[in-house]
């Protein structure tokens, strides 16, 4: 074990109360951050679920030869080659996740199931066949949707293309606002956490000011003096992060039991959170020790 690691661990043993206090403070500031993260995560989840429903519906022209033959047979095999080829084309668009043909019969069934008691207002044949296109994530913004819709519209047998323009627009705005608000709030929380952690480490530094002055007296370099504090800070940050993760998880569980169950961070995010704690501890320490070293 290196000297710096040993010194860092020694700090925990020699000042257990102060260390526990630091870890608790870090844990609570990261807990607040974690709760915020959880809310942000769930809003994002919800938005992306909504986004999944962004769909372009291209109606195949009424009365065309293609349409009527398909309608008559009510199945895709009967669809003339030109439409099936177009379907293949559309599927190959880089923005397109899936493109599926909906025959009039299928459209009718869907309408009936969606409308429930009003289902019998429809008669077979009223609804046109359509090609339903879903887009890949990242291409669900209004501009991309519009571009794809325009391209589909250019097929001569397509009579009309609909994609709920206003709805897509609004969703996109909400998502932008949520992203910006999330980033700003997240950075603020992280900054507050860094400040809190920095000041608890500052206490640890002050508690050992005598030791630092002796180290410097006997010829320790600044980086040598700094190292144990950086390790200590990172360790406290990681410990605080772990406690915060647990608290966040417990809160999530309780909310899940009492109110509604929400998404929790996946393993990757959880590990990243603990690392973020360690990083914040490291930065807080570096700032505190740096300031102290400059002042003496």
């Amino acid at each position: 074990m290196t000297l710096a690691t040993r010194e860092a661990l020694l700090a925990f043993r020699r000042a257990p109360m102060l260390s526990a206090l630091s870890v608790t403070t870090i844990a609570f500031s990261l807990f607040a951050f974690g709760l915020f993260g959880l809310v942000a995560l769930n809003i994002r989840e919800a938005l992306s679920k909504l986004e999944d429903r962004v769909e372009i519906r291209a109606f195949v022209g009424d009365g065309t030869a293609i349409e009527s033959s398909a309608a008559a047979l009510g199945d895709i095999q009967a669809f003339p080659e030109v439409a099936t080829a177009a379907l293949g084309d559309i599927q190959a668009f880089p923005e397109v996740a899936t493109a599926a043909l909906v025959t009039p019969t299928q459209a009718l069934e869907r309408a009936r199931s969606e409308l429930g008691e009003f289902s019998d207002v429809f008669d077979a044949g009223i609804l046109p066949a359509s090609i339903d296109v879903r887009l890949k994530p990242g291409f669900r913004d209004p501009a991309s949707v519009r571009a794809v819709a325009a391209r589909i519209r250019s097929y001569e047998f397509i009579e009309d293309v609909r994609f709920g323009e206003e709805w897509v627009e609004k969703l996109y705005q909400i998502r932008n606002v949520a992203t910006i608000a999330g980033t700003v709030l997240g950075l603020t929380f992280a900054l507050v956490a860094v400040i809190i952690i920095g000041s608890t480490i500052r206490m640890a530094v002050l508690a050992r000011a005598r030791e630092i002055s002796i180290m410097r007296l006997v010829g320790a370099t600044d980086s040598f003096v700094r190292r144990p504090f950086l390790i200590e800070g990172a360790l406290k940050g990681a410990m605080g992060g772990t406690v915060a993760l647990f608290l966040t998880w417990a809160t999530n569980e309780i909310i899940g039991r009492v109110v509604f169950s929400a998404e929790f961070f996946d393993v990757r995010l959880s590990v990243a959170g603990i690392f973020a704690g360690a990083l914040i501890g490291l930065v807080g320490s570096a700032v505190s020790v740096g300031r102290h070293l400059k002042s003496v």
Partner: protein
Amino acid sequence: MIRFTRVQKVYPRTGVALDDVTFGVGKGEFVFLTGPSGSGKSTILKLIFADELPTSGEVKIANVSSATLRHRDVARLRRKLGVVFQDFRLLEDRTVEANVGFALEVTGAPASVIRPRVARLLTQVGLASKAHALPPELSGGEQQRVAIARALANDPVVLLADEPTGNLDERATRGVFQLLREINGTGTAVMMATHDLDLVKRSDCRSIEINHGRIVFDTGDNSPGVV
């Protein structure tokens, strides 16, 4: 090896602490710094171990000049010096052995070097049997010996002692002074600030007296280059 040239030190709040101080200390010399309280003795020592920088003039230690000293050179300079104080400045929660070894650890020395060296240093200051004691379990004289052992750890060219016997009784004072003379005998220059004029008179060593930040007399500055 130590050379002060027209050194002035002005502290921000208290004003002039040293004024036009010029002297030199050669290899292996033993020099007392005397003078009333507040005259500037500690300030001279602080300038030597770069705890303070001169306001004007130059302090040159082992070819390192205060004029060109950068923050990161300070650590290297201090490894060439040993410093002891009236209040010992030991780490109270570490054994005698650990306190002495500390000065070697900060230089990155491996444990295989530290262990025998610490043992030798403790023998030199007469504390081999107290290696595992904690400083509060020792007498004042013994604690000062630990501090001296620590100061010697990196084989300094100069040992600076700021009233090392200030907290000690008569007998312990003589013991510590004797030890400093022995260390001086091995070729290490010693510069010792003290109020103990009897000690100075009895010993026949060079002494520099300061008053109000100026040298009032120097019993033996025969080093060249004094302006």
